[in-house]
């Protein structure tokens, strides 16, 4: 795949890129479809229900039907909404969610773009989504969505700081922002062990970035009905919903790559003839399951406790983590 990038532009490699992009899109959509199914099933089991089981065998087609329904629905728009922004917001939220996947090395061979600054690329693009969310909240011209939009802006921007800070430890250890190199550097020991502090901060901040329980304030159903997307329906709503799950895909991949050793086999099992992508998917599913588990267990944070938690709780821990990592690395290098 990366060889294509080196070649001069031709019909062949441009069409290859388009095919590859469509394939990635389909893979992601497939994942999203079944992540939603999986979520509903898992939470169903945790809550003494069976989850979807009507459409298709074992309800496997439920999400397909749901999404189709959303796509076929009438496109409604509140009368006083800001037309242009109202239409733009879902795209703003949705496009970066997909774009971040380009740099993910799913295995040694499957990667679409091998950027030197992969981590930075992810962080930079994912912060565009908050624009979509706040635009949606503003453009809907609804008080609930406005409050939801404001909350998400505050939340997502605040939690980005500890998120990035917690990754710095990993970058210090690897000496690179390239995701592929970060995975390769974990041959001996996964980053989750030496970077346990960073990992904990990352997991919590990621939860907030994804707007998922216990940080699902922007769409706090019991207070704000549905938050920023309260006025959205049909395919525009589907875009917000898909963006959320695609981000889960992205964040799951990122956690796997940064802390869980990417496609590397655990416990010295690399003699087994199992392709790296399988390990990747397993670790990734572990994270996704963790998300659902949290969702079934936790109550929601309160808006005014949310920001102090990021600034006074997570950020200092992340900074301490950077300090410790830096000291240890200098010690090892003999520079201290």
């Amino acid at each position, binding site marked *: 795949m990366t060889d294509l990038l080196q070649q001069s532009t031709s019909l062949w490699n441009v069409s290859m890129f388009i095919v590859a992009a469509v394939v990635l899109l389909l893979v992601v959509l497939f994942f999203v479809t079944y992540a939603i199914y999986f979520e509903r099933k898992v939470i169903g089991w945790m*809550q003494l229900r069976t989850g979807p089981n009507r459409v298709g065998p074992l309800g496997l087609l439920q999400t397909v039907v749901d999404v189709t329904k959303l796509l076929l629905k009438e496109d409604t728009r509140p009368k006083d909404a800001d037309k242009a922004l109202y239409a733009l917001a879902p795209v703003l939220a949705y496009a970066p969610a997909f774009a971040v996947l380009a740099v993910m090395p799913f295995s040694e061979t499957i990667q679409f773009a091998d950027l030197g600054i992969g981590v930075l690329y992810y962080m930079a693009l994912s912060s565009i989504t908050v624009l979509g969310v706040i635009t949606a909240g503003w453009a809907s011209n609804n*008080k609930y969505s406005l409050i939801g939009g404001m909350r998400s802006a505050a939340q997502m921007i605040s939690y980005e700081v500890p998120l990035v800070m917690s990754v710095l430890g990993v970058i210090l250890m690897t000496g690179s922002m390239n995701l592929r190199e970060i995975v390769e550097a974990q041959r001996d020991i996964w980053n989750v062990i030496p970077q346990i502090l960073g990992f904990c901060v990352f997991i919590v901040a990621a939860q907030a970035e994804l707007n998922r329980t216990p940080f699902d304030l922007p769409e*706090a159903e019991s207070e704000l009905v549905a938050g920023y997307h309260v006025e959205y329906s049909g395919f525009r709503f589907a875009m917000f919903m898909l963006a959320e799950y695609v981000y889960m895909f992205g964040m799951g991949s990122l956690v796997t790559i940064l802390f869980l050793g990417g496609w590397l086999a655990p416990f010295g099992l690399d003699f087994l003839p199992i392709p790296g992508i399988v390990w990747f998917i397993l670790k990734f599913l572990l994270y996704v399951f963790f998300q659902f588990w949290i969702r079934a*267990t936790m109550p*929601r944070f309160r*808006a005014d406790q949310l920001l102090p938690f990021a600034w006074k709780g997570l950020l200092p821990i992340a900074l301490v983590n950077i300090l410790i990592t830096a000291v240890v690395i200098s010690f090892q290098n003999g520079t201290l």
Partner: protein
Amino acid sequence: MSMNLDMISLNSEFSEGTGLRTEEMLLNVGPQHPSTHGVFRLVVKIDGETIKESLPVIGYLHRGTEKLAEGLNYTQIIPYTDRMDYLSAMTNNYVICHAVETMMGIQIPERADFLRVIVMEMNRIASHLVWWGTYLLDIGAMSPFLFAFRDREMILELFNELCGARLTYNYMRIGGVKWDAPPGWIEKVKEFVKHLKKEIENYHALVTGNEIFINRLQGIGKFDAKTAIDYSLSGVMLRSTGVKWDLRKDEPYSVYNRFEFDVPTATEGDCLARYQLRMAEIEQSLRILEQALGQFPEEGEIMGKVPKVIRPPQGETFVRIESPRGEIGCYIASNGKDKPWRMKFRRPSFNNLQILPKLLKGENISNMVAILGSIDIVLGEVDA
């Protein structure tokens, strides 16, 4: 003092420093909102996310129970009371029967009294379980709701077996109860008590110690005992401020004086205290149930000696009992006929709701649902 929407005025401020104009806005919460527990409507004036003022609007479920009662004879009124506090219909049944029985001096057979206490305590547990589940739903946790409803379902099944209804029981009659316990029913209730005792521990393990949960509720919606009494609050709302007042203990009715149980109180007067009290009350109700089931008379009548047509003597009476939400009272003015001349219910949800605007002032919007939920209102009862 009457309040209406026109009385709320919105301020806007212009800050010279930033050049920004800020505005207060009206947010209409309900009557179709997931956290107003029915058709309650709250108009709040907010500045950012801070509530400046709030105005509860009620009456969307008003059916005129008290007026309707004037055209019905006493037995016919009982099913109407089911529809007031529909989460605890048994206590409503009891309060009207108790009022008429007090007026006419009817003796209740022991077995009927025990059946009444058993179903009332079961209903109290069921009501608290619904509260627990929906409150956690308000706070943002989804699973407890389904666990609570699983256990409540068992109570409803038992009620279904006893009187053929799951929600509006119409079980009690003036002078006793309509149906005797079917064979094996008492054993099933005993099984249920054992089951719930175990489950309560799981409930605590899942929710009570959760840091997020405690942080959300501690110190929220706080008031003191004097305020509570001034606002005529009762039930958990009153007991959470340290006032030990439970009619089952202080003015025992039915056979409550035969059982040993505690009246849990707290002194904090905040949402967390109310949460803890309701959980403790479930445990106390289980204690009462255990004793009542143990002392349950083997056999006996379930209806006392009651005249064919119920005509309370001329005069008036007021009785009150402890419902899961507080003191529910029934006032009857009779002119000696088979229909009441005037009937009035003191509905604890309605009285407890009155303190809401005071509690909401200056709070954050996310505390709004926590405070409203902790009052534990049932709209059928607020609006009657």
